[in-house]
């Protein structure tokens, strides 16, 4: 892990080049360009609100739509980072086959490039949030912590998925479906307190998206500090997944050009 981190740091220009490119290519030849980053969470927000608002009521004391938009931003980042991260090695296969660079570089770059979408999403929240009933508060200061947690979780899941995808393209077919299931399993359209407190930490460990999505709601929509219990549980789980996943990644990495 240390060796990989050193290698990556030395190759930070490569990571930067990959990240810039990942973002450029994503919206190249797309009519609406980066506007897609705004449209996706908004498009999900409408049906969620129509269907769930009545039965759910206010979340943490703020209207359903405000809280859910915050959760959707975190979700949008995770799903986009993990999807592009998982596909990153394969989409760089031209370079993987013929040059050497730290093989983590495209994965890290994909996770970083998705921050641009998150940033656009945060702008949307800043504009639309007050109308929907979001409250500002000192909890907003925790936003960087939540963002770092999101990135850690995205990277932890992307590394093993990217390596697996390079060897078995099954991952590519399974991923959209798994991401959809993951959305239902994550407290995005419903609040985390639908799960009884006794099971909540197991929930947050089993699904590392639980902690940061809930934290995002608190920080952006209510202005309170995040609930550190679920956030810590999710982060711990993500670090464990990341550690195992990176070992797997490193086993496959040297022979990537032969199998990709």
């Amino acid at each position, binding site marked *: 892990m240390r060796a990989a981190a050193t290698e990556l740091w030395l190759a930070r*220009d*490569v990571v930067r080049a990959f990240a810039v*490119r990942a973002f450029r290519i994503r919206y190249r030849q797309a009519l609406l360009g980066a506007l897609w980053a705004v449209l996706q969470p908004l498009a999900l927000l409408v049906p969620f609100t129509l269907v769930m608002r009545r039965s759910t009521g206010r979340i943490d004391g703020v209207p359903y739509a405000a809280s859910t938009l915050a959760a959707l931003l975190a979700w949008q980042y995770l799903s986009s980072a993990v999807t592009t991260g998982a596909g990153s090695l394969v989409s760089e296969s*031209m*370079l993987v086959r013929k040059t050497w660079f730290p093989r983590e570089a495209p994965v890290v770059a994909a996770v970083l490039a998705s921050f641009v979408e998150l940033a656009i999403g945060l702008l949307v929240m800043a504009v639309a949030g007050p109308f929907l009933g979001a409250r500002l508060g000192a909890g907003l200061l925790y936003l960087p912590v939540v963002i770092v947690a999101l990135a850690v979780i995205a990277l932890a899941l992307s590394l093993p998925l990217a390596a697996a995808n390079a060897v078995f393209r099954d991952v590519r077919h399974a991923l959209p479906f798994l991401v959809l299931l993951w959305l239902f399993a994550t407290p995005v359209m419903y609040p985390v307190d639908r799960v009884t407190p006794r099971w909540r930490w197991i929930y947050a460990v089993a699904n590392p998206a639980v902690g940061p999505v809930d934290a995002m709601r608190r920080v952006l929509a209510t202005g309170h500090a995040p609930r550190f219990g679920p956030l810590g549980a999710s982060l711990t789980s993500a670090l464990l997944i990341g550690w195992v996943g990176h070992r797997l990644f490193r086993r496959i990495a*040297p022979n990537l*050009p032969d*199998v990709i």
Partner: protein
Amino acid sequence: MWALRFEHVTKQYRTGAGYRSLRQEMTDRTDRPASRPALHNVSFEVEEGEAFAVIGPNGAGKSTALRIAARVTGPTSGCVRVRGRVGALIEVGAGIHPELTGRENIWLYGAILGLKRRDIAARFDAIVDFAELGDVLDRPVKRYSSGMQLRLGFSIAAGVEPDVLVVDEALAVGDARFQVRCLDRMGALVRSGTTVVYVSHDLASVGASCTRAALLVDGGLATVGPVTETLAAYIGWLEQQGSQGTGAVVFDADGQPQTSVASGAEMVIRVPLRSAHLGAVTIALGIRDGHPWNVLGSVTTVPAGSALDHIDCRIDAVPLTAGLYQIWVSLDGDDRDGRWRQLGSFRVTEPHPQPRPLWIPAVAFVHEWRTR
């Protein structure tokens, strides 16, 4: 001091290349038969600042050795050590991303090769100049011709001033003028202390541009040493394989197929025409000494309506010094496209060969040096 060092390198590719689906992987648990390793226990050293060649027949593991040297793929066992930064040109378009523009590619590949942004900026113009891309620099590389891609790839790999430059036979794709500039550039790099590792099965060009060479046969290291010795070993190996017969293009005065002739002796070059043709065909014959131009040449025309299997060119006294030569032919007219193709190669021997430095043409002529 070595710049590149192979230590007992073995590389075994998985059998049934290409990727497998999860289902195949789970259902097919039988032990797959182990294929012959692409490289088997290969050890050699390349000295700092030398021009080193890796030669051998097809499938001998040359490209695998190069890919391992460039860290693209890892050895199955053993170890490869490199001092410094490796610039690699493996196949056309290596390190070039088709979706990016030429400009973006220079930045990306420069970063991959470990250059800081300001180092790339400092070399940027020189790279662009050498590649002669000019106004297409901001177009995606997928719209480039293969020649342009090659120029870009070589310019970046050589332009970032690596400590070790690894070049595959990709160069053969470029036009003659660019090949000359590449060889020139490689020569300049070697003079300025860069180590160049060159893979080719074009023996004449290896003989002309390298000082030491390794011969790989069937994944094993057969010989490593001065280029003349390694080339001799390879030619010996080729002759042993009996690669005579249908492909023979060089014959001696008695009509016997030969792979080498003595300087000043008679020789015959046979150019196959194969099909019966209706139109007139212009045949241009060229002999090259490893550089991409002809040192000897002649043109003849076969009139329309003649159905010939081949045409012979008889040379009374071979006017060449000791070395390796290629035979190139261009057929034009009728349905032929007039492109130069390599027909074969042969060796010229002399009883007392003089070492010939690079850039001195190989034509033998009667002359003497005088001080007054």
